[in-house]
C-alpha cells in the first residue's frame, strides 16, 4: 500500500518538527463550530530530539525522536471545563480530542473553573534564544566519545562514565484560544551530562558528575563539564564515615536550589487553595526566613537556557518576588488561582481542567543592603567541623512537602581545620521552616545552574546521620 502526501494538509510536519498554527486554528474553529462549541483553547507542542550515549569509546545508543502533542480545553454551555490530550494531530485526532474534552466537561468543577488568562494577548518579553542548526548524530557521537576519553584520562581510578549523554533538541509550542490569542515559540537546545564512576583497589566505588546546557551543541561548555565531573569524582575518592550528630552545613548552590524546589509548594497558590501547602492565604507578609534571604522566580534570566516565553495559558513569563527580606511577598499563580486571590496571573500555569502551577527558575540572593548574613563567613579553617553538602539524592522520596520535613541522602565533604574529606554515606534531615530561619549567611558569588542562581548557603544545626 502506498500513501502519498498532499502538502499542507496536516497540523504537524514530523519531518521538520514544525507546527502549522494557522491550520490548527482553522481546523479547531471548524470542528468546534460543527460541534456547537463556542469556547475552547489549546496547547500544542512538537519536537525533534537526537541523542547519543557512549561506553568506553563505543557508541552505546543513538536515539532520535519526533514527538507531537496537543491538549484541548472546552467550555460547555454551563461554563464547565473539560480537557483531552493526544499525540494524534491528524484531523480525526483533533476531532476526537475535541469530542473527548466536551464529554469531560460534564464533570468540570463548578467551584474552580478556569477561564482564559486576561494576559493571553499581552506583549511577551524578548528572549535572546538563538536558533542553531543541528550538528547531526555522528558529530555528536564524535564529540561525546572525545569527552568521555578525556574524562577517563583524568585519573587512573576513573574506570567508566556509566551515565553520559549529548543531545540536541528542536522544539516548538503554541497556545491558541477561541478569542484570537495566538502564542508561538520555537527553540533549539543542547545538553551534555557526564557522570563518572571511580574505584580504587580495596575501596568502595565513588561517583559524581556535571551537566551543561546551551542553545546548540556548539555552545556547550564541554571542557568545563569534563573538568567539573573529574574534579568532583576525584574529590570523593578519599572518603571516611561521619559520626552522627548536629553540624553546621554549607549547601552548594545546586543542593540548596534542589531543596527550595522540592518545597516550592510554600509559594504555590494552587497548593495553598488545595490545603496541602505549609503556607495559607494569610501567609503573605509573614516572615518565613532570615531577613537577608530573598527568593525571586525569574524564568527570563539569561541563565535559564530554554526559557518559556509564556505559560500553558498564554500568560507571559515575568519575574516575581517570592521572598524579600525573608518576608513572603507573593505566590505563583495560574489564571484561576490569581482570580481567587484577586491578583493577576503570574505566568506559572500548566494547561488543564484543574490547572497546575509551578516555578520556572529561582534567583536566591542576599537581600539588597543586608550584607548577606554573617560577614566573612569562611569558617573552613576554623576547628569546628563543617559538612559541605554538594548534592542531594532521592528528593522524590525523602521530602514531605506538605509536612515540611526532609531526610535525604547526600554527597559531600567533612571539612575540619581546612582539610576536606569525602563523606562515605550519610543523610541530612530537618524541617524547611526551621532551616530557612537557621541560615547564617551566604558566601561567594551566586552561581548560575540549570535550576537557578544561588551562592553557597550556610545553615546551622542540621542533623547528619553517618555510619561511623
Amino acid at each position, binding site marked *: 500500500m502506498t500513501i502519498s502526501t498532499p502538502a499542507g494538509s496536516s497540523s504537524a510536519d514530523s519531518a521538520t518538527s514544525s507546527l502549522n498554527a494557522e491550520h490548527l486554528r482553522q481546523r479547531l474553529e471548524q470542528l468546534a463550530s460543527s460541534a456547537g462549541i463556542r469556547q475552547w483553547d489549546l496547547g500544542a507542542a512538537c519536537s525533534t530530539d537526537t541523542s547519543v550515549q557512549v561506553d568506553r569509546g563505543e557508541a552505546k545508543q543513538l536515539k532520535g525522536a519526533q514527538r507531537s502533542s496537543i491538549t484541548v480545553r472546552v467550555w460547555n454551555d454551563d461554563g464547565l471545563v473539560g480537557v483531552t490530550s493526544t499525540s494524534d494531530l*491528524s484531523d480525526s485526532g483533533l476531532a476526537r480530542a475535541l469530542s473527548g474534552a466536551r464529554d469531560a466537561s460534564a464533570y468540570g468543577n463548578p467551584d474552580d473553573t478556569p477561564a482564559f488568562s486576561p494576559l493571553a494577548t499581552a506583549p511577551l518579553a524578548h528572549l535572546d534564544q538563538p536558533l542553531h542548526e543541528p550538528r547531526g548524530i555522528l558529530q555528536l557521537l564524535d564529540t561525546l566519545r572525545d569527552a568521555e576519553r578525556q574524562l577517563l584520562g583524568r585519573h587512573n581510578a576513573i574506570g567508566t562514565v556509566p551515565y553520559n549523554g549529548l543531545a540536541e533538541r528542536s522544539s516548538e509550542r503554541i497556545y491558541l484560544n477561541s478569542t484570537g490569542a495566538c502564542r508561538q515559540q520555537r527553540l533549539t537546545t543542547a545538553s551534555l551530562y557526564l557522570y563518572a564512576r571511580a574505584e580504587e583497589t580495596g575501596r568502595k566505588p565513588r561517583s559524581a558528575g556535571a551537566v551543561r546546557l546551551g542553545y546548540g551543541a556548539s555552545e556547550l561548555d564541554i571542557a568545563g563539564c569534563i573538568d567539573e565531573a573529574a574534579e568532583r569524582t576525584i574529590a570523593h575518592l578519599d572518603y571516611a564515615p561521619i559520626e552522627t550528630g548536629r553540624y553546621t552545613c554549607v549547601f552548594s548552590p545546586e543542593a540548596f536550589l534542589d531543596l527550595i524546589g522540592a518545597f516550592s509548594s510554600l509559594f504555590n497558590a494552587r497548593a495553598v487553595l488545595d490545603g496541602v501547602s505549609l503556607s495559607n492565604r494569610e501567609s503573605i507578609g509573614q516572615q518565613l526566613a532570615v531577613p537577608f534571604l530573598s527568593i525571586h522566580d525569574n524564568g527570563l534570566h539569561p541563565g535559564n537556557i530554554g526559557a518559556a516565553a509564556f505559560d500553558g495559558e498564554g500568560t507571559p513569563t515575568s519575574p516575581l518576588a517570592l521572598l524579600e527580606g525573608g518576608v513572603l511577598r507573593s505566590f505563583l499563580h495560574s489564571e484561576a488561582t490569581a482570580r481567587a486571590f484577586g491578583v493577576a496571573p503570574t505566568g506559572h500555569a500548566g494547561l488543564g481542567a484543574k490547572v497546575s502551577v509551578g516555578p520556572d527558575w529561582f534567583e536566591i540572593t542576599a537581600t539588597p543592603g543586608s550584607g548577606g548574613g554573617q560577614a566573612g563567613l569562611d569558617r573552613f579553617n576554623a576547628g569546628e567541623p563543617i559538612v559541605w553538602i554538594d548534592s542531594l539524592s*532521592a528528593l522524590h522520596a525523602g521530602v514531605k512537602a506538605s509536612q515540611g520535613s526532609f531526610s535525604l541522602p547526600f554527597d559531600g565533604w567533612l571539612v575540619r581545620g581546612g582539610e576536606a574529606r569525602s563523606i562515605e554515606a550519610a*543523610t541530612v534531615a530537618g524541617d524547611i521552616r526551621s532551616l530557612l530561619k537557621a541560615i547564617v549567611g551566604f558566601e561567594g558569588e551566586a552561581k548560575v545552574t540549570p535550576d537557578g542562581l544561588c551562592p553557597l548557603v550556610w545553615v546551622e544545626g542540621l542533623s547528619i546521620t553517618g555510619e561511623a
Partner: protein
Amino acid sequence: MIATPSASPSTAANASLADGFGDHWRPRLETLLADGRAAGADLVEVFLERTDHLGVLAEQERITSVTPAFGMGAGIRVFLAHRDGFVSTNDLSEAGLQRALEQALGMLGLQRNSQAASLFDGLTPLRDFAATKADWLQRCPMLQEATVRLLDGTAALQRRGRHLQARRGSYARDWQEVLVAASDGTFGRDVRLHQSVGLNVLAADGDNRAGVGRRYGTEGRPDDLRQWDAEASAAEVCESAGTMLYADYVEAGQLPVVLANRFGGVIFHEACGHLLETTQVERGTTPFAEKVGEPIAHAAVTAIDEGLTGGAFGSLSMDDEGMEPQRTVLIENGVLQRFISDRAGELRTGHARTGSGRRQSHTFAAASRMRNTYIAAGPHTPDDLIASVDKGLYCKSMGGGSVGPTGQFNFAVEEGYLIENGKLTKPVKGATLIGEAKEVMPRISMCANDLELAAGFCGSVSGSIFVTVGQPHIKVDSITVGGR
C-alpha cells in the same frame, strides 16, 4: 509523482488504525524489516503502540479533574554488531515509518539499498495475545461510574478520619495495544490494561502534620475499580494518618530493622533488583557482574522476578520485544542464579533473555527491567522477627527509593515504630534507610511466612513502568537509619 487528493497521510494511517493492530499490518512491517536488513542491519525491530488513558481526581466532595488522553506511535530499533540506533515517531503513515527507519539506519552509518538482497525470511504467524482481551476497555467502568467510586472513597475518608485538612481519591486507567515485529521473525500483539486507585490525606493538628497515601493496582482486570473496597482502604489510610500525626521523629543511627511485607519489598527492588538488570552489567555499575553461582545474600534469601502472577501490576503476556515472560529465580538460598535480560542485554553481556524487555512507551527503547519482583516466604512468623530485636525499627509502610551508580540505595519509611525488647512501642516518622547492596543483602537474616505483593511504578532507563514489589516480613540485622 502522483498525489492522492483524498487523504492526508495521518488520516490514512488512522484509517488503518481504526481496526487496531493485527495481521493486516504484516505487509507494511515486512517491507520495513526487509529494507532494514537489506541496508546491512543485523536486526530491525518495530514497536507500534496505541494508548487510551483516563485519569480522575476527587478532592473532598468534588470531582476536580478528569484527564482523558489517547495516542499512538512507533519505535524502530536497528542493531549493528553491539550498537543500536533507535527512533520514535508519532507518525504511523508508511512515509513516516520509512523516514524513521532511514534515520535509525543513518545513525549506524547505513542507508537503504534497493539493489541489495534482504536476508529477511518474513514474519512468523502472528501470536495474538490480545485476542481474548478485545473487550477489556469496554468492560472498564465508564467515567460516571469511576467518579462515583472515587467520591465513595473521599466520603469514607471523611467518616473515618480526624483532623483531615485534605482528602483525595484518584483513579488511573491505562490501556495499551502493542504490536511487535522484528527481522528474526518475531510477530506478536498484546493488549495491557493497568488500573490503579489511590487515597491520600493530609492530617493537621496545630504544628503536627501527617500526609499518608495508599495506592492499589492491578493488570488485566477490567472490574478492578468495581471490586475496590473503598471503606477498607479509607480505614487503612486514616488509621495510619491518625497514628503518624503525633509521632516523634526517629532517632538516627545504625539499627536492626524489621520491614513489613508488601511494599517493604522496595528494599530488594532498590538494593539488589536494579543491580541484577543487564543494563547495569553493560554500564559496569553492578558489583554482582561476575558473581553468578556465588553467594551474594544471606542463605535465608531467595528472590524471584516473574511476569506471570495473575492480576499483578508487573505481569504481561509478552514483553515489549515480543517474548513471553519467564519466572526467573534471581537468588536461591543466597546464591546468585541469573540476571534479568532483554535483547540488547543478551547481545552485549551474554545473559539469556528472560522476557524482561520493557519500556514506558514507544518513545523509549526497551531495556532489561523488573516485573513482579519479590523475596520468597521463609519459615518464621512476623512476631518471631520482632521478638528477635532488642532495640530497632519496625517499618510498617515504605515510601519510594532509588539506587545510584555505585550501588548505594535509599528509601523512605512512611510509617515506623520503635522495637524495644522484642515489642512494638511508639510510632516514629522521618526515617530514611540508606545502604549498599553488597553489605545489606547478607544482613537479611530472617524471612517470615507472609509473602504479599504490592503495585508500584519504577522509573529507569526505559521510562516509568508498572511493577510489583513484594516480600514477607524480613529482618535486616543492621542498616543506617537516617533521622534527627
